[in-house]
């Protein structure tokens, strides 16, 4: 499953690199050495962290709302 995902991503990546002509400057080199993955992983982690925090806040709030009145 994991390897499947990675090979799919790799396929998409290299397609993007080779299909087009070179007229318009794109981040081809960045993709060729594959290290764009690093940035994507970092961004993914940041977003996951932010959403995790939203879930945490949501849970905390639910607890406070359900607390019986003293």
């Amino acid at each position, binding site marked *: 499953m994991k390897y499947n995902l990675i090979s799919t*991503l790799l396929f*998409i*990546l290299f*397609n*993007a690199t080779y*299909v*087009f*002509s070179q*007229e*318009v*400057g*794109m*981040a081809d080199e960045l993709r060729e050495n594959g290290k*764009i993955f690093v*940035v*994507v992983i970092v*961004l*993914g982690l940041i*977003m*996951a962290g932010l*959403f995790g925090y*939203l*879930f945490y*806040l*949501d*849970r905390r*709030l*639910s607890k*406070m*709302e359900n607390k019986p009145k003293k």
Partner: protein
Amino acid sequence: MKGIFWKLLASLLVLYTVLAGFLFQVPRLPILHETIRNLYFHVPMWWTMIFLFMISFILSLRYLSSGNIQFDVAARESVNIGLLFSFLGIVTGMIWARFTWGDYWTNDVHLNGAAITILTYTAYIILHNSIEDEIKRARFSAVYNIFAFVLMVVFIGILPRMTDSLHPGKGGNPGFNQYDLDSQMRMVFYPAVVGWLMTGYWIYQLKLRVQRLKMKEEE
């Protein structure tokens, strides 16, 4: 937790667009180059803002027809979060403009319209903060909010389409036809919009719940 399903969906959609937004193919266009990927991140900010302001508009209408103060509280919070997204939208837009149009700000109708919208809604928050009496505050703010929504529609929905604009999608042609052709971009763009709309709504709900707890405490 209530609504865990759509909250999970929202986070997965946004995560997907971050991954796909960087890795999928995009059309090769002069001037834009790779910055075309900003479409996945900059534009959803504005959609979310419009969505939240629309919610606030409806809540204000409901306040005026029912007189229930809770609608006013909710209307204010949704403007708050809408403003957050509008700032994100304008700052990301300015950075994008710097590297494609050559300057952070051009006196373009669409850009000025967006700035006016932000000011209009900032004025709503100021108005809301400045009135002591609860009922007066709610009523004045609700009436102003309806006015503000109409202004927003005029300034970012109508005026930019009536004249020339640098901004894609404006200046006579609604939508973004030049990118529309690319179905691969749609596969990322639409999920991004939906994901961010839900995320914006989620944050607004959280803020509203905090506000409600605060009000309960004060009672």
